């Protein structure tokens, strides 16, 4: 039901929202999986699009499609943008990967950029952000701030991106308190404020006093605020929703990347790159550290500085898995390929990873 509803929604709402029409301007286009009003993932991409508008508005015209369902429908949406004269198309969800590759093969003169996937082509570049860097710092803060020594972690789906985040958070927490515990609840949705709130209440009721989320709404953080507990934001800075509870938020900043890529098309220097940017590139930004004492803040800032300078990598080998086996070479970061396929918990997480 949900799927075809989303498809129908594309028919209903998928009219490209076109800014000022001008034939001589370069047309840059975006495809979002959610509504721009989610105040999370798609919202943040749209902030990036607006930044392009602002920076290059005299030479570039931007267009976006929102609420595009992953799967066959996406191909039609992307192809329509291609036919309408878009010169560069950003497809921002994992499930747009195959459709992007297919359409790109038909339109070799158009540049495509796909986020969070792994398939490339002569005119398809890929990009993603190293969210796990922020989560390591969050783990350190959580271990310092928690009185019960237990965090509640609300998660969407067991894909490597999310598992990597949990592991990174726990590595950070263990670096401060080796006995730190985490309780994990999967809500099996990226976005369902009600369910996220339910999960948050249950976790707080079971003794977690810090909430972490890898879902997109502000609901868990609001529950933390209501209960007088602490938490971390996700994708956007959510401080307005939890002025007394938010410690920091792991935000995505696509602005510089989008501006640079569109500029490259203007200059004729665009190449299909493989970008996995982190704090160093300004793609992952922790919002201001709040509601914590100065020493914790300093620790967090130090870690951020070390990650930025490359002096430290959250996944420095050897990493001990739950079953006791280890991966990675001593003193060296795990290779990116290993991270992108992560399907195991590290030692210290008393839970079973759903397969």
């Amino acid at each position: 039901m949900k799927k075809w509803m989303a498809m129908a929604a594309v028919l209903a709402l998928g009219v490209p929202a076109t800014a000022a029409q001008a034939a001589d301007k370069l047309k840059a286009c975006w495809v979002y999986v959610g509504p721009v009003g989610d105040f999370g993932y798609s919202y943040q991409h749209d902030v990036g699009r607006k930044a392009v508008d602002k920076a290059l508005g005299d030479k570039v015209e931007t267009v976006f499609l929102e609420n595009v369902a992953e799967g066959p429908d996406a191909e039609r949406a992307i192809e329509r943008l291609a036919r309408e004269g878009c010169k560069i198309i950003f497809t921002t969800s994992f499930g747009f990967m195959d459709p992007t590759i297919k359409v790109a093969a038909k339109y070799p003169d158009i540049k495509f950029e796909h986020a969070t996937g792994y398939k490339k082509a002569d005119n398809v570049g890929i990009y993603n952000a190293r969210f796990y860097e922020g989560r390591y710092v969050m783990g350190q803060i959580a271990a310092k701030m928690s009185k019960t020594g237990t965090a509640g972690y609300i998660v969407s789906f067991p894909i490597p991106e999310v598992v990597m985040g949990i592991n990174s958070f726990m590595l950070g927490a263990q670096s401060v308190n080796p006995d730190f515990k985490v309780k994990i609840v999967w809500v099996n949705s990226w976005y369902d404020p009600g369910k996220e709130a339910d999960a948050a209440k249950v976790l707080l009721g079971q003794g977690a006093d810090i909430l972490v989320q890898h879902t997109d709404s502000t609901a868990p953080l609001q529950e933390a605020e209501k209960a007088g507990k602490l938490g971390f934001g996700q994708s956007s800075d959510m401080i307005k929703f939890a002025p007394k509870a938010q410690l920091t938020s792991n935000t995505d900043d696509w602005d510089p990347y989008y501006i640079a890529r569109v500029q490259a098309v203007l200059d004729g220097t665009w190449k299909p790159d493989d970008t996995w940017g982190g704090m160093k590139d300004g793609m992952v930004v922790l919002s201001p550290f709040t509601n914590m004492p100065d020493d914790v803040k300093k620790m967090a800032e130090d870690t951020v500085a070390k990650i930025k300078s490359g002096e430290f990598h959250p996944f420095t080998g050897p990493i001990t898995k739950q079953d006791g086996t280890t991966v990675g070479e001593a003193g060296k970061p795990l290779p990116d390929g290993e991270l992108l396929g992560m399907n195991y918990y590290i030692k210290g997480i008393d839970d079973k990873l759903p397969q």
Partner: protein
Amino acid sequence: MNDQLLSVILTIITASTPLLLAAIGELVVERSGVLNLGVEGMMAVGAVSGFGAALMTGNPYVGVFAALAAGAVLSLLFGFLTLTMVSNQVATGLALTLLGLGAAGLMGESFVGQPGIHLERLHIPGLSEVPLIGPILFGQDFLVYLSLIIVAAVSYVLFRTKAGLIIRAVGDSQQSAHALGYSVVGVRYLCVMFGGACSGLAGGYLSLAYTPQWVENMTAGRGWIALALVVFSSWLPWRIVAGAYLFGTITVMGFSLQAYGIGIPSQLLSALPYIVTILVLVVISGNRALMRANTPACLGQPFVPDR
């Protein structure tokens, strides 16, 4: 342990109330012989209107009223199309869902990312502090009580009053009701509006009490669950309470079990509320006589009065 039990029970109540509100409204609509599949859309519009009105006036009760009114107005559109223009109810209901979700997104554009106004919980000094029972019985927001009052009222009106008899007559045998001189279309308009108001209220509960914020698609399919609960209840009001709370309980228990680290796959736990609801439905449907007696015979049938 008491604290944990309490938090689980309180969570169950908030998770169940929106389902209950939307379902009891739809039950009345269906009892009058109309099938309105637009619950999800009316909920979304109710949620955004309630949020917006509360934000602008600073008063959550204004928000509650706005949610109710918005749901009723949208249902009036459905009523006009299906009752006056005699369009297909299924198609119109589906269109109403799409329209409602889209319109809510449009109306709510400027509300995204703004913290909302929270509907206060009741607090009776002394009573609300009684361990365990106090917060459950005397510490809810007023919509929780209202939802149960509505169920009691619907049950009473439908089965103990003449008005209820007329509603059921219209739903069971529109020609007979018409022949007796009752305005089939008029009764249905009122029932459809009642259903819309309840759906709007359910949406308002989401954006004012459950998770005080507005984000697109925040109804997340609850309207569809409410529709299913009506069938689950075999159109009997008190069974909706059982259904809504059963659904809420299993959802919240699933999270609870996960947090305890019991190795049951989370996908199974997420599916469990649906599975259990279907199983109970199958058991209930076993009693054919009861099902046939309570299913509105004219459900979804158009009515055009003879001129």
